[in-house]
């Protein structure tokens, strides 16, 4: 074996720049997808718990569909398939934007929100019914009772499973390289093809993913510790 390790090549100069650019895109796409999937997941969960039948059906179908199909297929669907059903004007507009990025965000968001909706739903179920009752009895509407009383308690309970969903988004975001989003994995792959130093490129990108994940779970755990003080389990 006469492979010459060259870490400097990957970490500095133009290739180092590529890694940084890729890292930025990874952070950006993960952050946007996490925020959007929290929003969408909450909406889907509340729909599922509402008494409005069509909303319940919609959210049940949504959850089962997106949870049980491979993410890579969904990414390809949004990127290669969605233009067939969108109006021309929308397509034209989309192609002027960063369509790869948008398709990546949409697929990550939709996929993740299906999982998050289930976590939120189980969180809501774990809050005693008398909390909803007490708040409705004071005159709060269903949505107010959910937003100010039930969901804040539910979220604190489901923080551990939510963290793993967030971490999944960061890791899953590496799949968007397949549709040409220039994320960390894409850049590592690019460096490999230019330099044949795949070992260094992918070791560096692996470590970066690891560090991001560790930081995220540390931050959320700190938040958790601070806010869980007074919630009895």
């Amino acid at each position, binding site marked *: 074996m006469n492979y010459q390790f060259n870490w400097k090549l990957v970490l500095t100069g133009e290739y180092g720049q590529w890694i940084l650019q890729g890292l930025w895109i990874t952070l950006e796409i993960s952050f946007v997808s996490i925020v959007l999937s929290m929003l969408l997941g909450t909406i889907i969960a509340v729909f599922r718990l509402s008494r409005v039948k069509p909303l319940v059906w919609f959210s049940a179908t949504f959850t089962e569909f997106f949870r049980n199909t491979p993410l890579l297929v969904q990414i390809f669907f949004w990127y290669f398939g969605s233009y067939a059903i969108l109006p021309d004007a929308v397509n034209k507009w989309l192609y002027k934007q960063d369509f790869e990025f948008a398709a990546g965000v949409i697929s990550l968001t939709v996929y993740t929100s299906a999982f998050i909706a289930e976590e939120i739903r189980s969180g809501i179920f774990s809050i005693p019914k*008398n*909390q909803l*009752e*007490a*708040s*409705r*009895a*004071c*005159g*709060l*509407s269903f949505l*107010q009772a959910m937003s*100010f*009383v039930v969901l*804040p*308690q539910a979220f*604190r309970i489901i923080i551990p499973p939510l963290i793993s969903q967030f971490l999944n988004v960061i890791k899953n975001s590496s799949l968007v390289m397949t549709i040409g989003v220039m994320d960390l994995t894409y850049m590592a792959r690019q460096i490999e093809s230019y330099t044949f130093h795949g070992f260094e490129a992918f070791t560096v990108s692996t470590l970066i993913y690891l560090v991001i994940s560790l930081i995220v779970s540390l931050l959320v755990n700190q938040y958790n510790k601070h*806010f869980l*003080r*007074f*919630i*009895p389990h």
Partner: protein
Amino acid sequence: MSMIEFHNVNKWYGDFHVLKDINESVESGEVLVICGPSGSGKSTLIRCVNRLEEYQKGHILIEGRDLHGDDVNVNELRSEIGIVFQQFNLYPHLSVLKNITLAPIKVRKTPKKDAEEMAMQLLERVGIHSQATKYPAELSGGQQQRVAIARALAMKPKIMLFDEPTSALDPEMINEVLNVMKDLAREGMTMLCVTHEMGFAREVADRVVFMDFGEILEQAPPDEFFRNPKHERTKLFLKEIL
């Protein structure tokens, strides 16, 4: 016009007939104590008054307005009827102060500062203003129940419902809650109290209602109720608990 009128109220849980032909009226400022064995429908009855329970037949009127009338907004209705639960049901993630100000701020759109000022006055009234910044889990049961009363009073209700407010309390904490309720009764609040505290009934109730198997078997002013119960079931019940 009476504050609350029950006209032939009937409720079923499936086949189980929980409330049978309830007819009763409560005047403004009246304090009604509802007692009876467990499962007799007393809690269900008062929970119908703020529509936490639905009933299938009959009518309940609040100041002449049907609870299920088309012109009734359930949230507005509930905001005018306070309820205190057996298990307190405070919001564990909010401080005592925020437990009290949440509904006034969100439902009544009271400015935060005014709501907090009012909350502090109410906490003073129930004797725990020094605990405003604490969380419910840091308080004793009796203190939590007093916060729950303050939370209900913050909406300036016309009617207060008490659903066995002292049943979950340690004996030494029962009086601190009953004293708050007695003060309220003397100030002229219309109150429906499901309770087994017969001392409370004797002291402040205008009438005592006895329920069994979903029916009102008898009702009378406390003196008469305790001295001269008419129904056999009532006699038996009073013998058991006194």
